[in-house]
């Protein structure tokens, strides 16, 4: 059975392994690696250059830190300023094993929670290191002036997040990502002023330059005037974020895209676990078909808000305040008494979907096409209710904790959440998959490093809340700056002239692509194609996946992609500020990535974390893993256009943690 699908959709490759993590006890791996990694002396760092793409928590922190160390850094972003990277939108907080609460927290517990939360599909050594450096991140940020929430004694406040039973999440109201990013941005600007970092905003990476098997540069399109330029350096770092926008509607910023990592993938970088997508349970429901993006309501709301739907479907149209307590089903508290409303995101999302599928959703009914072709009216929303918290703490205390989130909700929906329960529904939020990297964060291309959400490494099949900020900053401040030196110690590498065949090839390929997109002059807009792709992905590769659905999706995506290159209409010219053209290039890459996501989801015949295959569930409807067959990272190799991607497996080895079926009951 498996072989049939395999023959049809992918080719088998050799197993791979991380070769960088030393084989010692888990608590000594990072220290041992730091000692074995070769150093570059400060005088020699001036002779070395590093390109960093992206200025979010991972990229901005890495650029500032490598600049401080004395390397020549070239930093690129597509926004008009490095301060706008989408890390800025993270709301809830950042985890750290400080144990300031004396609640039995420790590096080991943070490590354990993260591996378990990721449903045992993350690489153990990477996660342990993440937990180890987490405490230093908080120190670093406080020293930079990040205004974390404090108690009256002047010490830092913390709160709980999903999937854990300790209070280890540091926060700055509902704007933690913003504050951490501004901290990194200020350090970055300081290095720009010092001349160690050169900043190129409104430059979008459109191609990777590989010379003699090493990543040596990138090609960018200057978004102000369309100029295609090449840049070379001794190493390249991609910190370009996730690819949730393949679904069109997501909580990502409008500009978030996969082009940088996808272009690198096409040049030889393996793509790890592309199907692992996080659907966040608490987002504002979709209002209509002109919607451009979805807005998240921080998971921190689940600390005090209670999630429920009516017990009876006939109550779903009533004013929620008129529904008595005994007619409400607080389903998460009912099904998972130990964790209640704070179960991990994948579980909370799937249960919300289940409630709505049962006909107990709330809010406006939307027409949905069923598998048999019929159309059914479904309400896609559940209540997130703060009336208990308001009675317990008072409205002012609730406003102090969540005020900006409540304001945002009211702004978007026109409803007052202090009076009427919020309505929420899951939405695409984060991608755990990304370019495959080893323990040093180096991809399968020498000299190409990948940090933050753009890599695959730390969250397994599901990321816990407040861990993305932790990983971005861990990679940027503490991991990459202590591993990339091992590679740069062999440099400086031979200079790459502008007429090097690899540079010429990359520049030409980028130029030709732009020309081709502009020459089609079809009838359908880029957004129209993007929406269609998003619908296919959400329907067949979203919260629930099946073999038949995924096969269908692959066919549909291939047809859509063919149509795209015949019928897309991109207005304007290349040598201009042309936003339609920018989007056109990104959507073209999403069309290819979407197919790989479906193939990965099809091949993984188990449920784990955010990847739920309907064929693989327990009697109670929980995700069922198959560790005997799928205890590995799927690292996909590009085999050329029209060729089947090649599957490499990196077996996952757990020495410090015992594999268990996840339970939050």
């Amino acid at each position, binding site marked *: 059975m498996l072989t049939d699908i395999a023959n049809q959709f992918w080719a088998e490759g050799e197993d791979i392994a991380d070769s960088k993590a030393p084989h010692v006890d888990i608590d000594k791996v990072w220290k041992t690696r730091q000692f074995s990694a070769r150093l570059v002396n400060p005088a020699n760092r001036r002779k070395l250059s590093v390109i960093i793409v992206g200025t979010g928590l991972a990229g901005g922190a890495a650029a500032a*830190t490598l600049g401080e160390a004395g390397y020549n850094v070239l930093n690129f972003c597509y926004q008009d300023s490095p301060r706008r990277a989408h890390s800025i939108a993270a709301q809830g907080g950042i985890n750290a094993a400080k144990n300031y609460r004396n609640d039995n927290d420790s590096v080991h517990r943070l490590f354990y929670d993260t591996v378990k939360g990721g449903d045992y599909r993350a690489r153990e050594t990477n996660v342990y290191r993440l937990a180890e450096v987490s405490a230093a991140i908080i120190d670093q940020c406080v020293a930079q*002036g990040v205004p974390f929430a404090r108690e009256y004694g002047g010490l830092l406040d913390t709160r709980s997040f999903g999937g854990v039973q300790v209070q280890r999440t540091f926060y700055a109201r509902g704007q933690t990502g913003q504050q951490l990013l501004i901290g990194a*941005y200020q350090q970055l600007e300081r290095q720009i002023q010092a001349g160690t970092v050169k900043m190129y905003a409104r430059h979008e990476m459109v191609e990777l330059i590989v010379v003699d098997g090493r990543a040596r540069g990138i090609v960018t399109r200057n978004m102000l005037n369309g100029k295609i330029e090449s840049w070379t350096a001794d190493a390249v770092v991609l910190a370009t974020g996730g690819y949730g926008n393949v679904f069109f509607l997501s909580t990502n910023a409008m500009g978030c895209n996969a082009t940088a990592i996808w272009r690198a993938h096409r040049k030889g970088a393996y793509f790890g676990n592309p199907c692992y997508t996080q659907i966040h349970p608490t987002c504002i429901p979709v209002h209509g078909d002109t919607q451009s993006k979805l807005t998240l309501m921080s998971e921190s709301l689940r600390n005090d808000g209670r999630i429920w739907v009516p017990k009876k479907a006939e109550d779903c149209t009533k004013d929620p305040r008129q529904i008595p307590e005994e007619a409400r089903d607080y389903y998460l508290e009912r099904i998972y008494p130990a964790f209640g409303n704070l179960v991990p995101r994948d579980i909370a999302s799937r249960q919300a979907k289940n409630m709505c599928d049962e006909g107990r959703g709330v809010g406006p009914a939307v027409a949905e096409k069923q598998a048999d072709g019929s159309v059914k009216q479904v309400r896609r929303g559940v209540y997130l209710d703060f009336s208990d918290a308001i009675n317990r703490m008072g409205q002012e205390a609730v406003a102090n904790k969540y005020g900006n989130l409540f304001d945002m909700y009211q702004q978007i929906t026109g409803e007052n959440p202090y009076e009427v329960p919020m309505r929420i529904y899951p939405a695409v939020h984060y991608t755990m998959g990304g370019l495959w990297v080893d323990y040093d964060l180096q991809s399968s291309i020498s000299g190409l490093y990948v940090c933050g959400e753009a890599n695959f490494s730390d969250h397994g099949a599901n990321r816990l809340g407040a861990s993305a900020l932790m990983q971005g900053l861990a990679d940027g401040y503490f991991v990459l700056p202590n591993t990339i030196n091992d590679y740069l110690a062999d440099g400086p590498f031979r200079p790459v002239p502008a007429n090097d065949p690899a540079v010429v090839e990359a520049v030409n390929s980028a130029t030709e692509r732009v020309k081709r997109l502009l020459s089609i002059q079809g009838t359908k807009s880029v957004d129209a194609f993007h929406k269609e792709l998003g619908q296919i992905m959400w329907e067949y590769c979203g919260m629930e996946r099946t073999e038949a659905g995924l096969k269908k999706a692959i066919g549909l995506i291939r047809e859509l992609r063919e149509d795209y290159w015949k019928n897309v*209409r991109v207005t304007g010219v290349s040598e201009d500020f042309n936003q339609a053209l920018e989007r056109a290039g990104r959507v073209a890459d999403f069309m290819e990535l979407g197919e790989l996501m479906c193939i990965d989801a099809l091949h993984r015949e188990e449920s784990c974390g955010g990847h739920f295959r309907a064929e693989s569930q327990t009697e109670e409807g929980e995700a069922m893993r198959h560790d005997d067959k799928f205890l590995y990272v799927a690292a996909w190799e590009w085999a050329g256009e029209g060729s089947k991607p090649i599957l490499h497996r990196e077996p996952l080895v757990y020495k410090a943690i015992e594999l268990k079926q996840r339970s939050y009951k």
Partner: protein
Amino acid sequence: MKLKLRIWRQAGPNATGQMVDYHLDGVSEDMSFLEMLDMLNEQLTAENKEPVAFDHDCREGICGMCGVVINGVAHGGSATTTCQLHMRSFADNATIEIEPWRAGAFPVIKDLAVDRTALDRIIASGGYISSNTGAAPDAHATPAPKREADRAFDNATCIGCGACVAACPNSSGMLFTSAKITHLAMLPQGQPERYRRVKAMVAQHDAEGFGNCTNIGECSQVCPKGIPLESISQLNRDLVKSLFKGDGK
């Protein structure tokens, strides 16, 4: 909803711009302002006309990339970002005028998009605490009083959108500059460079061609994050004190 839109169209930095009229039908009141512009752009694309260029990214009011003047007021005057403004704030058959930020220090790039890199250069001139990665003491080594920490936070919420500049008759960037100065001045970690910082940032602010503050207060009115005018007073107090300190230029 039906709308009449009057939008500033300008082909490039050196081109002459003008207001152009458009009609848009079928707008829903649940749409955000930018989704309404998306709809217009889809319509223009269908007519094979060039869409309106405008900056935007997160569409949740935090990245600071969006921002246009709506009916003469930056971000439309609802003390939120343009992306968080929803069409239910407008009447059916309304005429809406949409223009870019107008300030000498923010040259127009195209249509509604402007160049705000001057704000980055103000931060680069001193809007930071010099603390290299790895050099930090334990986070609890220095407690910070909650009142000051909260005030630091209130100022740190600035998103750098530039609405304050667009709203100011002098095109002053003082609210932006003072927010960063107050944020860092309220924290114990910000003290060592406090007075150097204010001198350097104000000098850069002036060098970028922003005007001076004359206490009009339009900036704070349109600020999506409610940065108060008293932050500018804080800047001025620190600037005066800095003149008596030998530190910095």
